[in-house]
């Protein structure tokens, strides 16, 4: 008895000892796969397709980072996380990168000690209702039953919104999007609330998407982005600049079609620096000089990733809106590659 307790304690301590480490790049290279935390399944953002391969807007970020670091966008192990397990998974070192519709907030950055690589989708919290509920504004929701995912910013915003508007509601806390969808479709709640992009993706998977609508109110700012553990700045830089490379590629007109041609060298020095035919940016990151070429070839530039997974031509049908390049009136703005 005492013996087994003792060895159990040893094993636990051993596990704890593995957690704190600032060598993520070396670990990923040695393992030759990137461990990437994604959702448990939200079509368009991260979900396995019929062949069992993960695809989506967040998945593309994982693949781009894997391609930048390991030269191959398929060297990713996807780890499904729920709203309330994702931070434990990242903090404990179970995953190297979290790309899961995660809102960049002060407390997550400063208090929970994560490092956001940037924003890959500017979003806000919305409400999904059945059209025949007869509600046209979120201000008419007094007394409604609302499905929410636990461990999210959503549940905090919701509490604030109803308080500020002096309305009451009945929260139904739920772990995953799939369960929330079930309860909502069974009418166990009147409203489903989460990020508007997530709502659009969820609605697209309904049998009759036309029977449901998003209310016009967007009650919060939800800048969603990939994140890593605080303290490993070199790894944080890789995630940040891979995302920037995808955004800059769109701005500079580098697409998966002309990538090869442009990588050989162009008369635009910024493109040359980005794609590695000039300067040594890759080396500064501790990566090969064609790191950005690999990242872009994994799924295209930011615009291509957007259009392929959640854009106007997909079932989800999201407009670029705030997520257009700054040159087109959006908020996407990559710092210069110099």
């Amino acid at each position, binding site marked *: 008895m005492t013996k087994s307790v*003792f060895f159990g304690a040893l094993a636990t301590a051993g596990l704890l*000892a593995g957690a704190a480490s600032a060598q993520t790049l070396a670990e990923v290279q040695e393992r030759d796969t990137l461990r990437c935390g994604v959702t448990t399944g939200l079509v368009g953002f991260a979900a396995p397709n019929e062949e069992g391969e993960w695809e989506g807007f967040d998945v593309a970020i994982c693949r781009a980072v894997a391609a930048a670091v390991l030269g191959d966008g398929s060297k990713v192990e996807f780890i499904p996380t729920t709203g309330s397990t994702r931070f*434990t998974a990242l903090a404990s070192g179970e995953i190297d990168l979290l790309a899961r519709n995660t809102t960049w907030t002060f407390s997550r950055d400063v208090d929970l000690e994560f490092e956001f690589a940037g924003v890959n989708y500017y979003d806000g919290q919305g409400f999904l209702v059945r059209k025949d509920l007869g509600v046209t504004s979120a201000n008419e929701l007094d*007394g409604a039953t609302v499905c929410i995912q636990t461990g999210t910013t959503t549940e905090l915003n919701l*509490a604030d919104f109803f*308080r500020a508007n002096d309305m009451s509601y009945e929260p139904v806390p739920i772990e995953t999007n799939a369960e929330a969808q079930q309860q909502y479709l069974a009418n*166990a709640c009147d409203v489903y609330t989460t990020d508007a992009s997530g709502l659009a993706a969820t609605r697209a998977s309904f049998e009759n998407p036309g029977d449901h609508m998003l209310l016009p109110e967007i009650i919060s700012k939800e800048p969603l982005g990939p994140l890593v553990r605080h303290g490993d700045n070199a790894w944080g830089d890789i995630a940040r600049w891979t995302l920037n490379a995808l955004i800059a590629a769109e701005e500079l007109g580098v697409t998966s079609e002309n990538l090869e041609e442009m990588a050989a060298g162009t008369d635009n020095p910024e493109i040359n620096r980005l794609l590695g035919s000039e300067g040594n940016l890759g080396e500064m990151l501790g990566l090969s000089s064609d790191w950005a070429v690999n990242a872009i070839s994994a799924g295209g530039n930011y615009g291509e990733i957007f259009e392929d997974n959640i854009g106007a031509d997909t079932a989800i049908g999201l407009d670029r809106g705030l997520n257009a390049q700054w040159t087109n009136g959006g908020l996407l703005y990559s710092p210069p590659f110099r």
Partner: protein
Amino acid sequence: MTAMTDTQSDQGFHPSQLIYDTRYRSITIQIIALICVLAGFGWLINNAVTNLAAAGQDFNFDFLGNVAGYDINQKIIDYDSQMTHGRATLVGLLNTLLVAVLGCITCTVIGVTMGVLRLSNNWIVQKLATVYVEGFRNVPVLLWIVLTMGVMIKLPPDPRAFRSGDASMILWDSVAITNRGVYVPRIIYEAGSSIVVGVLILSIIGIFAFRRLARKRQEATGAILPVFWVSLGLLFIPVIIAQFVMGSPVSLQNPYFRGFNFTDGVHLRNSLIALWLALSLYTGAFVAENVRAGILAVSKGQTEAAAALGIRPRRIMNLVVLPQAMRVIVPPMISNYLNLTKNSSLALAIGYMDLTGTLGNITRNQTGREMECVLLLMGIYLILSLGISSLGNLYNNSVKLKER
């Protein structure tokens, strides 16, 4: 132990005796083991603190005083999102206690009934009880919880069906069964209701007094008083008179549909019902087996002797067999109650906001205080379990065989 192999004690103490002398050896080994375990724990804690520090995190419980920011649907005490994480923890703890108490009561009722029925001479009844026991005992309780919740969400009509007339309330429009839970009437107390409640309490005291008296009478004279009917009368008649005289101060308010949901009744959420039901049925199966074992442990001669005295079968069970069986039943019963209480933390799977749902999930996740929350959670469950054990042991002492 008095068995001794060496007889050198008169030759003075020598350190090698610590290993070779059987009088000291076991103590030596125990002390060494204790030192190792303590050192192990010390290293473990030191390691955790060092690693937390390396990750830039301190270890403190200040977050319990910060604003929680989230809402909880089922709250037994006052709570809103501007109150603290500590308060949210308390709300969760009360929800855990609620489902644990309800579950322990129902699992006992179900278990005792099923345990007795499993020994029935009626083939069908006996087989049905067996199917129940084996069915529930052999499937993980999480599946039962999720299944029950699924049924509760899918089967009953949603509240709007009541508005359109596709569904209607039952029991003279007092109870609504919906897929958001069951709404039952609320009791309203108006002026003068304290008198009615007072009368009720007095009646209950009266019933106990009467039962004592009846037992004394029976022991002294052998005459059996009609305890059941008198108790029933004592319970209802004075209260009804008081209620009538005071002009019906205590009344029931039926729930009714307004806006999105039923209001004005008591809302038994389907997460509570599903958890309560699944835990009771699951634990009930184990209780049934304990009860059966307890009854079988009472020698058959007892039953036969009682039957020879002409006592009816029901009375044999209640007066002869069960009191003796209790001695076997009670100790494992305590562990069933413990299991039920701990299993209630599976509430997380269906969104019942118990201690694990508040402190162990939302608070942990929003504050990022993993270590603190989990340790606190473990501590609270430990205290709860120790409390249940000691209550159970107190009861066990009162029913166990008294050697005179």
